């Protein structure tokens, strides 16, 4: 009864989402069949389209993983976007500064640098929360604007490419770019970085005493304190890892995809990351699946716009609807689920 109720409620969510999508498609005056066909072919239609899903999934996995690690210890990180930008700054600065290093040293160094920059950007709110009880929801969010503005300043001043009139940096030296898997696609080695991060985070959170403490603090800080676990230490640590992972996402975007620093390097990955973590239930594997799903939704909606004339904004609306339905699931489907 309990299990089938759960399955039924998710089926209900799927049907409602589908219904709302159809309504939206009809509202913009497109053909529903054609829209769905173009959506699916936008994802699975070609080798390239599938690789595009993976390209989009890389930053979503990393930032989503970051948000999830934070959430495990009760650190609500709204600032993955800003931390991603900090990571992007780190990789760009380091690449120009250490430009004669070979790739084998450069790549690990810039990843580490991105981790540290992103981590610092999030450990400050983490410290403020742990030490003074200041809400990290506000501070991390505010830090986004600062980071984005810093990028804006940098690409117009010291990092500006002198040979171009646009506010962007020059191309990174080759040693600082991640290799592309297949020359016909944009899929780069950032995918490996993301997947390795997933495995490492999974081991850290689920297999080590440190991860255990972080989870315990997230679920019941009071009981943790009474058992001698330092709530302070664990919040600071998890905020560091959380921001660090988002920083690595910034590294991958710059050195894997754009090969330079520019304004608007992330179309809101850091915010979508919150949804990725939420849908993935803050579990590393869940994060991978939900990141792939959301990336596919975005890539598919591009196909839908190209071929059926349905605006891509629909994908954002649908994402919002899904999140709303998942959050409201327990009360919407109260009758199906057992009393709590």
């Amino acid at each position: 009864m309990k299990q089938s109720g759960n399955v039924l409620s998710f089926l209900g969510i799927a049907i409602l989402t589908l219904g709302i999508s159809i309504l939206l498609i009809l509202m913009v005056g497109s053909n529903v069949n054609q829209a769905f066909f173009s959506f699916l072919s936008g994802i699975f239609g070609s080798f390239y389209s599938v690789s595009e899903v993976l390209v989009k999934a890389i930053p979503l996995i990393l930032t989503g993983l970051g948000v999830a690690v934070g959430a495990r210890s009760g650190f609500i990180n709204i600032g993955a976007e800003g931390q991603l930008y900090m990571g992007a700054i780190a990789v760009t600065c380091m690449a120009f500064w250490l430009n004669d290093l070979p790739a084998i040293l450069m790549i690990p160094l810039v990843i580490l640098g991105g981790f540290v920059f992103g981590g610092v950007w999030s450990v400050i709110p983490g410290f403020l929360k742990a030490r003074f009880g200041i809400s990290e929801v506000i501070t991390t969010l505010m830090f986004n604007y600062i980071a984005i503005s810093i990028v804006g300043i940098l690409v117009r001043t010291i990092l500006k490419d002198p040979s171009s009139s646009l506010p962007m940096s020059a191309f990174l030296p080759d040693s600082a770019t991640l290799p592309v898997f297949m020359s016909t696609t944009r899929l780069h080695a950032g995918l490996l970085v993301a997947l390795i991060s997933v495995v490492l985070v999974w081991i850290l959170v689920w297999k080590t005493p440190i991860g255990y403490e972080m989870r315990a603090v997230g679920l019941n800080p009071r009981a943790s304190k009474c058992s001698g676990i330092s709530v302070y230490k664990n919040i600071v640590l998890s905020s560091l890892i959380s921001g660090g992972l988002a920083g690595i996402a910034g590294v991958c975007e710059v050195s894997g995809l754009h090969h330079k620093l520019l304004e608007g390097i992330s179309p809101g990955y850091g915010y979508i990351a919150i949804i990725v973590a939420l849908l993935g239930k803050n579990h590393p594997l869940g994060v991978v699946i939900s990141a792939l799903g959301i990336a596919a939704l975005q890539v598919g909606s591009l196909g839908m716009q190209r071929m059926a004339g349905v605006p891509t904004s629909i994908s954002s609306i649908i994402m919002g609807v899904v999140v709303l339905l998942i959050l409201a699931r327990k009360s919407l489907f109260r009758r199906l689920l057992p009393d709590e």
Partner: protein
Amino acid sequence: MALLSMKNICKSFFGKRANNRVCFDLMPGEIHALLGENGAGKTTLMNILYGIYSRDSGVILWKGQEVSFTSPREAIACHIGMVHQHFMLVPTLTVSQNITLGLREKGYPFPDRKALNATITEVSEKYGLEIDVNAYISSLSVGEQQRVEIIKLLYRDAELLILDEPTAMLTPQETEYFFEVLRKLRADGRSVIIITHRIPEIMSITDRVTVLRDGCNVVTEKTSDITEQELSQYMIGRQLNSIQREPIVPDAGREGLLLEDVSLKEKNIKGLDSISLQIAPGEIVGVAGVDGNGQKELVEVILGIRKQSSGKIGLDGLDMSSMSVLERKKLGIGYISDDRQQDGLVMDMNLTDNMLLKTHTEQQFIKGGLINARLVWEDTKKVVEEYAIKTPDLNTPLRNLSGGNQQKLILAREMAGDPKAIVAHQPTRGLDIGATEFVQQQLLQRRSKGCCILLISADLEEILLLSDRIAVIYKGRFMGIFPNTKDLNLSHIGLMMAGRTSEVREESL
């Protein structure tokens, strides 16, 4: 004719029968006790009446009419009111604001506060429920808060008052005062249902008593026609093992748990005031007192969860005044908190993870930097068998276990590795008699192994049953420490719990 009659009420949670064809009748103007162990279905039955739970089957007749409330609001509209065990008051509002909360009185949303206060005072004076209507709830004692809850119901003209464990937090004197109020309510033709498991109180105040056991009716009888022994038999349904305490075996080599002049001052409020105490190995010292007189502060200072402002705390000659919680625990202090769900367990974690709360820092459970899951699993399995913890499997979140089984897991965890001292704060709160007995036996077993035990309980009977010495705490101070002998003056202890010390003042009362 009965004022209220509930017939064949059934209610299941997760396939477990909480109420099984329960019948209950209430006459107008009677005080009726609903007696049973924890988990017998008393509160469930009343929550069904009050519209908090829906019943699976059965009929409720109120003044001869069939009713079925879907929310407390509807029950209150029919003049039925309930005071829950945990009060539903807003601490930052005044008494008067709390009483009229949710009512759209004349002039709403700008009611005439003076007129309302006059009405409230009229109601409260009628039943001897003295209260300052302009006081803030946060400044009131537990007894006064209870008065506010009752006035709240009377203000809404409740003809039936349901009181869930009303005396649990009161001193003996406050309880007597409270009974006076109940008698006045009865004289006024109102009916009262008291949910309780305290038999002596039933004998002194109620007209009739209904006993429930395992969700079923056992008996309904006039209180005057039944004895305490019979009631106890009905409630438990079996014979209790009586608890035997052997004399202490002194262990000269150990100093035990020592508190020297320990004080705690937080935000200019004195939580503890020069507490000195030495607990010998193999001794149980019970601390009696009304909840909120510094008990929580005392245990948390001993554990290092709060830092004392002055004084010294030591164990077996080792000064641990400035040690962290973890260091103290590693020294061998087991801690049973009064709030197991908040302080002792992570309710959303499973059994093995909750055992890890202590063992994740122990080297034997770590292998190559990783938690040795197999060993933890085996350790937990052993504990589950040894303490007979009822659980579907080791992966069940603690949330889904009963209170008794949750408490057993805490005991198992905190008593592992032969602790030198145990701080047990309300270790049997909310447990049924079987589980209570188990916990008490465990404490006595530790005592005979030379453990120093500090037992804090609001239940005076428990203190009397287990302690070698009894300390009475009031406003963070020890009013006195006595050996627990047969000729102990109980009323004396009761008065000390209420803050009175000298014999002279006792007589002048």
